[in-house]
């Protein structure tokens, strides 16, 4: 069964990608996510059409997923500040593969909290939050090559 956070992750991944439609089948459940592309909208604001179509025998799950879907459908982005990448480079959420992430979703951060590093040409740029608030969404993937101005974090400011 998909957890809420897994669903969110899937939706986020779909949002960030160029894929318009995603179908998944897992343990007898079917999940179908579909994007309505409106080119003028920022990636995080793409409306989602969410269809859960589980097998007949999994009725209780269906109810639950539909509730989640409704929640997700009506929710506006829960953040009011987007931290964008100041440069092209590799995005790192942790100082080394063994270390703890700098921040997690839900963390309360201050202006000087380091959120990530971006590496280009062996220059490691430690990015600070620059605002006080809470991490609502991490919009890029650890190790991903990010573009200039690409959204990295969704922050709800205090």
């Amino acid at each position, binding site marked *: 069964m998909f957890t809420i956070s897994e669903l969110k992750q899937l939706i986020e991944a779909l949002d960030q990608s160029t894929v318009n439609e995603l179908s998944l089948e897992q343990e007898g459940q079917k999940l179908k996510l579909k994007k309505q592309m409106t080119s003028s909208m920022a990636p995080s604001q793409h409306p989602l059409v969410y269809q859960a179509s589980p097998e007949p025998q999994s009725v209780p799950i269906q109810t639950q997923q539909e509730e989640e879907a409704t929640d997700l459908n009506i929710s506006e982005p829960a953040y009011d500040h987007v931290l964008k990448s100041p*440069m*092209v*480079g590799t995005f790192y959420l942790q100082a080394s593969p063994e270390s703890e992430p700098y921040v997690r979703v839900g963390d309360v951060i201050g202006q000087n909290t380091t959120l990530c590093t971006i*590496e*280009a*040409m062996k220059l*490691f740029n430690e990015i600070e939050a620059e605002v006080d608030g809470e991490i609502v969404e991490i919009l890029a993937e650890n190790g991903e090559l990010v573009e200039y101005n690409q959204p990295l974090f969704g922050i709800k400011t205090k």
Partner: protein
Amino acid sequence: MVLSNRERLIQLLSQNMHTYVSGQWLSNELGISRTAVWKQMKHLEEDGYHFKAVPNKGYRLIDMPDKVSENTLFWGMDTRVLGQTLEYHEQVESTQDIAHMRARENAPEGYLIVTDSQLKGRGRLQRRFQSENKNGGWFSFILRPDIPPLHAQKLTLITAIALIRTIKQKTTLQPQIKWPNDVLINGRKLAGILTEMQAEQDRIHYMVIGVGININHRPDEFSDDIKDKVTSLLIETGDHFKRRHFIQDFLKNFEALYEAFLKEGFLTFKEEWEQSAFRLGEELTYKKNKQTFSGTFIGIHEDGALVVEKDGIKDYLYSAEIDWF
């Protein structure tokens, strides 16, 4: 920087190595008694400084210790800003970490940290950088350039050029730069550079450039896992080099490049970088976002990106895993 009497004495003596200076003159310059001057000189002698003393003429400094220390580093530092404020430690975990700490405490541009031995020297992604050995040049320095953060990455290439210039001044070796800034000799790593930056979107708070160079290492001084991949100036030339001279000369070279870069930009130095480029003109295989590509390494872009070309199409690499060996 406020200098102690000892530091000022070293400065006065070193500025006058061509001649003799009297005890009275030193006493006047320093504003301390002749006895106090004499005591300071005795201490310096114990630390390995050599003087020639001639009655009625005075003292002349003829040699100073090979060991690296704040005094010996400061002496002969022919820079305007870089290394004019510095600290030296016999052993540290990482000069890079100290530099970050000092930068947060508002240490000025050019502030330098040098050590004989690093216990936790690090490279990219906290990878271990072997630097316990006392035969290397291990140091970090702070820069506060007034340039957009986007341009800062070019300073990693500038640092490599400064190393190449320094090595060429001292040897007949043909060092190469593995993009963006590892220094190799005959395909073996001689020096590594790590640059870290604290910046906002449009303003750099500070940068820390860390340099590690194998100077007087013998072959048996590298651990088994890296000994076939690394080298030292001693191994390549058979000669011994004074570490503090190497560091001082590097800083002088870097400072000249840095000042020119701030005025003129990187384009002036693109060609010099490319002249030393490792595997230029050859086919490279690289990974970008987990996909493998290949192409001919045709040079670097004026912003420092590595340029590969395949079937007439150019690709610009800022951050990629490249299969160099």
